[in-house]
């Protein structure tokens, strides 16, 4: 039996919601649409008896992915720096020919 969950679009991003829905695909599929400042999720559990479990997993998943998004935003410059440092000394990138 399907059910509906709503998330405030001011506090939750569509990216986090989509990722959380994808991570749930072993137990449910989710349709997401936007309306009146909310993301409306129609959730279709694979097992009829798993409503509560699926609902909790989706809510936790959204919060987890929001947190991951914050970490990624805070650390993007240093991540780029680390990768640049790591690959600058591998010899994998051929030198540009002299003009």
């Amino acid at each position, binding site marked *: 039996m399907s059910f509906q969950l709503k998330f405030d679009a001011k*506090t939750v991003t569509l990216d986090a919601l989509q*990722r959380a829905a*994808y*991570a*749930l*695909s*072993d*137990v449910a599929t989710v349709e997401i649409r936007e309306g009146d400042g909310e993301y409306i999720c129609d959730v279709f559990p694979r097992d009829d008896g798993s409503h509560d479990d699926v609902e909790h997993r989706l*809510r*936790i998943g959204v*919060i*987890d*992915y*929001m*947190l*991951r998004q*914050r*970490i*990624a935003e*805070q*650390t993007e410059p*240093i*991540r780029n*720096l*680390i*990768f*640049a*440092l*790591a*690959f600058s*000394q*591998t*010899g*994998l990138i051929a030198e540009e020919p002299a003009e």
Partner: protein
Amino acid sequence: MTIAFDRQSAVPAHWELLPFRFHALDPTTTLLTNLVGEQVCVNPYQLTEIVDGTCTDEALLAELRAKHIIRGFGERTSAELLAMKLRTRMRRLPDSTGLHIFVVTLRCEHTCKYCQVSRQPTSGARYDMTVQHAERALDIVFRSPSPRLKIEFQGGEPLLNFAIIQHIVTAARARNVGPTRDLSFVIASNLALLSDEILDYCKREGIYLSTSLDGPPDLHTRNRPRPGNDSWQRTVDGIGSAQRALGVDHVSALMTTTEGSLGRVREIIDQYRSLGVLNIFLRPISPYGFALRRRGGGNYGVEAWLKFYEEGLDYIFELNAAGTLMVETYAVIIAKKMFSNEDPGYVDLTSPAGIGLSALVYNYDGAVYASDEGRMLAEMGDHTFRLGHLDTDTYEDIMLSDALLSPLEQSITTSAPMCSTCAFEPYCGSDPVFHHATMGDAVGVKPLSAFCQRNMGVFTLLLRKYRDDPGARAVLRKWAHR
């Protein structure tokens, strides 16, 4: 328990975050891993305090700093150290391809229930590799930049075409001039046809032997029938003869978990121990070839295998505590990735995937495949991972083929859905052949993937043992630095 986060909360005052990922091991323990897999466990409240910059627990902050999950403002060394560790982990990439598998014949005198190839009767000489194909394959072997070249002979039963093995060994040694490579040879054989002449040759040439041993006599013989029902006896006799002739370190054995293995892991390990083989790889069955049949031995789920694996690992930890230095190969590979800076480059646990980059397969008929599993799929009629043919294609044609580059590009875990945010990503890898075979797509849907479920289960298990069991922790540390 869930915790709401204020997106506008304060940033740290005296320190800042380095890139890290997290995973809830249980409701009170969250694993944090940095870019190279160094880890710290915290509780969910601590995680929010760390991200908000409000954590004041000095001991925890010191641990997070030591594990490169945070750094002091303006601190340069942490970025440089992380870059160096990242480079160390990826140092194998420019040195592709180290393993070259020669399928010297498809003939076999066994009829194993889970056999992954379409074996042929022993008399069918048209299923043997020719000298011309062997020479063309060696052309490709010696184009690979890897400083270490391992040539593995497989079948069928490779000893049924021993003449071509001898030819390839001689020809490879003759080609290994100039900037020489570390060249080694392995014969993957059921050992039923092992003779003194073959052992003399292996000793002279320093050839390693690898065999299959599924456990006690009834289990092994049922899984691996042959005329006379003596496959276990022949394998065990072969292991003994090979150990005496070549030395214990030149003989290894692999097992395959079938339904009949479940509940018998101690007996299986004891069988290895009794033969002086102190290295066991508790492998699940692969979803290819005859293994997919109803009686193929693969009718069990990931949960059942994980239970089998944990029972086996617990027994091996017990044996180590009692002084027997038994080793489980998969746990060693993962322990190295978790608790050291070394990446052993195991084909199934690398990103990008190991297909082509770690291994190439030259089939008896001249076809070249990206992996042994790719060859098995071809035997089932799916040629997705066929990279070319020795009659017509060069090294460049093979290594730059779409059949290789396309799945390789999709196999980079840092850009795969769910893998990119997974705390286990530094320990894991991708297996495009497995996902293609089971889901029809090289990436696969991770929440539905048996590969993902199995590896997440093993990672969680090893971390739990490491955290909760001092004896297991000591063994895992030792394995990490073997």
